[in-house]
């Protein structure tokens, strides 16, 4: 029988084949070839695109280069969302590879955060991990860790070292034996159809009667429109890491196995594609 540990590996080693093309209006000295890359689903765009940046900068003049940003079919891609989430939310129904347009000009100030260095990504990542542990363990676990453990989490993600990351992250996934799960489940629900960036509420993994809450319970509670769309027949997909877990899946299990490295379950609600 397959082990739950394999899920962690599959999640970690999820890759999205991506084709980067330079935006047509960018001024180049010679034609820019598209650049193909396997992006780790669990990482962040600006963390893993050094090669892309170098590739396109080779054909550009220094003065035409300002901060790099990415866009897919007109939507600027938020670097502070994990790559897998961006893909699931915006491009899961389009054909592979994922086409991303690279910009070096006209940074969309109102849509994106600036990312001047990797320290910013690290700060963002660590603040997510801390927020998640505040929900799960009242911050007890993350606070008991040493600085080097925090660094190991970040370096694990940075260097794509699964075991380096999980050697520490497992402690964040533990809970007292007498409880049936975390205090609250760290989750964020994203919908392309609403203005709101995401939904985040306090939600416990176990009901008062001892029953484990499921993914369906969560959606019914915090995002009822996702499971029972108002406009009748049109159905939604509930997607995490490119898969659609059954609504009966216990939320605690999902949180332990399908969370992103920032320890959040990033759930995309997207309209069912019409084939």
């Amino acid at each position, binding site marked *: 029988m397959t082990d739950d540990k394999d899920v962690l590996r599959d999640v970690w080693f999820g890759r999205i084949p991506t084709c980067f093309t330079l935006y047509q209006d960018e001024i180049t000295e010679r034609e820019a070839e598209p650049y193909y890359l396997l992006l780790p689903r669990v990482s962040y765009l600006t963390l893993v695109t050094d090669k892309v940046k170098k590739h396109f900068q080779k054909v550009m003049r220094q003065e035409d280069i300002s901060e790099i940003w990415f866009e897919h079919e007109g939507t600027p891609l938020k670097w502070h969302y994990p790559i897998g989430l961006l893909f699931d939310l915006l491009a899961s129904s389009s054909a592979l590879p994922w086409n991303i347009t690279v910009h070096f000009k006209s940074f969309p100030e109102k849509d994106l955060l600036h990312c001047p260095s990797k320290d910013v990504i690290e700060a963002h990542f660590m603040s997510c991990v801390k927020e998640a542990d505040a929900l799960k363990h009242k911050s007890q676990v993350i606070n008991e860790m040493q600085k080097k453990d925090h660094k190991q989490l970040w370096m694990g993600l940075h260097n794509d070292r699964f075991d380096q990351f999980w*050697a520490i992250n497992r402690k964040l996934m533990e809970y007292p034996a007498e409880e049936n799960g975390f205090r609250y489940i760290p989750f964020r629900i994203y919908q392309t159809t609403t203005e709101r960036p995401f939904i985040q509420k306090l939600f416990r993994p176990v009901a008062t009667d*001892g029953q484990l809450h499921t993914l369906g319970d969560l959606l019914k509670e915090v995002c009822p429109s996702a499971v029972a769309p108002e406009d009748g027949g049109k159905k939604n997909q509930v997607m995490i890491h490119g*898969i659609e877990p059954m609504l009966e899946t216990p939320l605690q299990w999902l949180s332990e196995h399908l969370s992103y490295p920032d320890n959040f379950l990033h759930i995309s609600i997207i309209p069912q594609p019409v084939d």
Partner: protein
Amino acid sequence: MGAGPAPASYAPAFPAAERQPSDPAPRRWPSPATMPSSALWAVDLFGRVYTLSTAGQYWELCKDTQLEFKRVSAATQCCWGIACDNQVYVYVCASDVPIRRQEEVYENQRWNPVGGFCEKLLPSDRWPWSDVSGLQHRPLDGVVLPSPHWEWESDWYVDENFGGEPTEKGGWTYAIDFPATYTRDKKWNSYVRRRRWIRYRRYKSRDTWAKIPSKDDPKQLPDPFNDLSVGGWEVTDEPVGHLSVWAVSLQGKVWYREDVSHPNPEGSSWSLVDTPGEVVQISCGPHDLLWVTLWEGQALVREGINRNNPKVGSSWCIVEPPTSENGIMHVSVGVGVVWAVTKDRKVWFRRGVNSHNPCGTSWIEMVGEMMMVNVGLNDQVWGIGCEDRAVYFRQGVTPSELSGKTWKAIVAGRECDRSHSGSSSSLLSAGCFFGDEVRGGGDSCAPSDVDASSEAERPGPEQAVPAGSLESPRASKGSSAAGLGASKTTEHAAEAASPADQTPRPEPHPCPASTPAELPWTNIDLKEPKKAPSQSAADCPETAGLSSLGMLPLGLEEPYCADDHPLWAWVSGGGCAMEPHAVLKWFTVQSGLSSSVQTLSPAITPAQTATWRKQIFQQLTERTKRELENFRHYEQAVEQSVWVKTGSLQWWCDWKPHKWVDVRVALEQFKGHDGARDSILFVYYVVQEEKKYLHVFLNEVTTLVPVLNEAKHSFALYTPERTRQRWPVRLAAATEQDMNDWLALLNLSCCESRRVLGRPSPQAIWSVTCKGDIFVSEPSPDLEAPEHPLPCDQMFWRQMGGHLRVVEASSHGVVWGIGYDGTAWVYTGGYGGGCFQGLASSTGNIYTQSDVKCVHIYENQRWNPVTGYTSRGLPTDRHMWSDATGLQECTKAGTKPPSLQWAWVSDWSVDFSVSGGTDPEGWQYASDFPSSYHGYKTMRDFVRRRCWARKCKLVTSGPWLEVSPIALGDVSIIPESPGTTESGHSIALWAVSDKGDVLCRLGVSELNPAGSSWLHVGTDQPFASVSIGGDYQVWAVARDGSAFYRGSVSPSQPAGDCWYHIPSPPKQRLKQVSVGQTSVCAVDDNGNLWYRQGVTPSYPQGSSWEHVSNNVRRVSVGPLDQVWVIANKVQGSHSLSRGTVCHRTGVQPLEPKGQGWDYGIGGGWDHISIRANATRASKSASQETSGEQGLPSGPSSVASAPQEAVGPVCC
């Protein structure tokens, strides 16, 4: 060097006399699952007895519902009670192992010249039929059953076994005259002879209340009993299983039941013990504490109770109540604690109680008001709440904090409630219990209640009566039950019950649980039940969470009153083992429909079979395929890099200066071109101001062994070379956590570089070290190759979580283990646990495991003419407190548990079970140190010693689930025959219990590796070892060192039919046997390994034992007839290791004894099981399967083969 009795003494056709005709048809007792080994016993206000299993979540009505009880007092496996007929009953829990006692009669004969041996004896002689001494006349038909609760197992038969040797000629033993020393052989001067007839009786009244027979003189008989207490099981050590049963009569007298023990559950008679006052209540602890309450409100404490004197003690000592105005109403004692309830229902804890001061020093008032309290196993405390009549558990009672922290109510429902709620869909959520609609829904539930077990006592016709009229009999029953129990402690209940008669109400529910608000006495006895807020969980998670805990201190204004709790009158925790780490389902309301929730018991948890889980696995695979398959040529965004973990450890410098040296270590991990990863461990050290380093490639590491002791957290690292040298790299960490992190990381790196991940294969080789650590190795096909087998020092061993003494595997994937405390464990299919957390461990199938062992130290004394024995020895003597060798000083205060993983769980006590026997105080005498000791003093003895033992306990985790309740000494699983994949039959598994009973497990299969129940296989003496071979050949070794073969074992007759006594090698006592496909090997007490010669299908008992080797501790023969042992000592180039895995080389069908030894991992290995490895080398498979793997040829051909068995394994 063939040895053993001449085969001639054993004709191929077995004479009938050599079978043991007694052997009864094995009896199948009810499965142990029906009665939990650990349960809380309680009596409700109606006098019904319930048990609550520590593994369960519902109160179960006691099977025998004919009787109503006033009080019960439980021990493990049995419970004593006083019923409402004022008679005493004992309920002995069913077990797969019968309680059987041997009766014996000696038949004596004298030789006379005319008729030879005959029954006519001389007038001065003993009776022709007598007891062993010959003094008592004892005809066969004069031996009667002691009570109606016993039955005969079979008829009388002659005992053929004489001191481990089979006798001939009808079991007669000969002597010159009575009484004398008897011998097996008849000599010229043998004038008398005798033989032993034996017959077994069995206790049959199990899982039922058996009335204690009163054969005593009616005048002597006590008046009706009022209270009763069971304890004393720790006063003496096991086999005997002594119990102290004390009772108090209505007249206030104290009685003791004589001779109660596990093999004699009823005891023999009541005897009166004088007391200085009128006693109302009594409590006897597991050890030497005995307290009683006097009518006047004081307590009496018995002093001087000890092992030799469990009953009488020496004197009574009076303890005054905490306050003079409110006397003591109830006491309960444990091993080292006393709790009391005074007449104002206040609860008190007695400070300073121990064996030396059973009276203690002072009272401390505790929070809460209780009707009664009861101290159970491990000094855990239970009580019945005064207000709500709920059973409370004292939380947080630990050896360091005996008074605990807080009272926690048990809100477990009863079985009848469960069937109720399960039958009605309107009651799905607990919240519904609080709503009004439940009452209305009662009628629809009524049919299901008819099925409930609690209704068994209701006369049949009444079932048709309208619901309303059911109330009156029930109410009167309640009052009568309470009324009968209305001794001085339960007036409260009587008060409560009487108004019930005056206010009969329509009450459709026999279970108060379903509509407790309707119960008459709730209005009188309890405050208005507080309804839980009916807010939905989602609205207010905080409050909802709190109410689900059901944990409110009693002192609060509004006592928590779960709407569905029964009203209790009495509780007894003497059979309830509360593990501090165990998660009990008693304290939260269970929904009853938790099929999707993970539960602990089954080997495969529902979560792992759930559809959602499969779906996730499947979708992830599909996703990977979709997103990666056509794009593998794309560049990776992140390049793999070298990762280095560094840290500070200590390293054992094994040359000058021979000490632990502080070192920096670095583990460099990198990924090769082929994706395989490899790692190097660097150890940087400075010796004599020279900076140096050593490095180890982790793909060469064969094993990492934790070496925990009280001083260091260290581990040893072996490579094949270091295994040969017997010289591992030893590293130590500053903390246990640090060591575990390194061990887990290094292990993971080793496993990854060898691609050994996940669950071990069914063919895996399992072993256990002397520290109880479990190691498993994946067998290479070359391991058993006939030519150039893989050297066994190259085997890679990885550790599994858990702690075991014995582990046995079979290639079906069924693996069983036995802990140091005898607990049987079954492998769950997980991996990791213990210090292997996170990635190195499976998510499921890892459970808490605990083990208990004893630490022994010796007290040594020398005799001198002036003062006798004193602890002042000669200057040359050993330490006056030492280890067994006398070389190491070991004081009581200075001796620590074996490592930090272990914690003391008992105090030091004298160990009387040492070999050689002891005097009543535990002393063993000898002429001088060191010498052989005996249990009595002679004129020539000038020194003496005694052994002290202290129990310590370890709690860890691993892929193991307990198979309760029977503790085991040995276990063996049938090896799979090579080439056969028969299915359908259950897998044969045999075991020997810790008491020496031979057992056969039924229902073992790959899907249910734990099996279902034990089948007891009768023997005439306790056994020590058992092994089942490939063709259902069962061999066993008795504790007296003799060997037995079990005849006719087959899938259809799993227990076989009878034992054949096989003579041991001359002057040797066998201690272990292992049977492979056809080979039978045994090890004796002196470390000799013997091979059974001449075993053929038609003659499976073989002809003689042939010596193979000495220096062997334990043997494991596998399905390929391969022979592996644990060798005692093996010398390497750098040092010597004790306890080493060795593989017999040159084992061939024509050479089953092999030729030499190949040495594997060692230094502290205790046990190996290669019985799962049926993996044959692939290249030779074609030759081998052509039928060559037959039986060894006859003795002649073997004799002509070279007999050169390499003798000693080493040195």
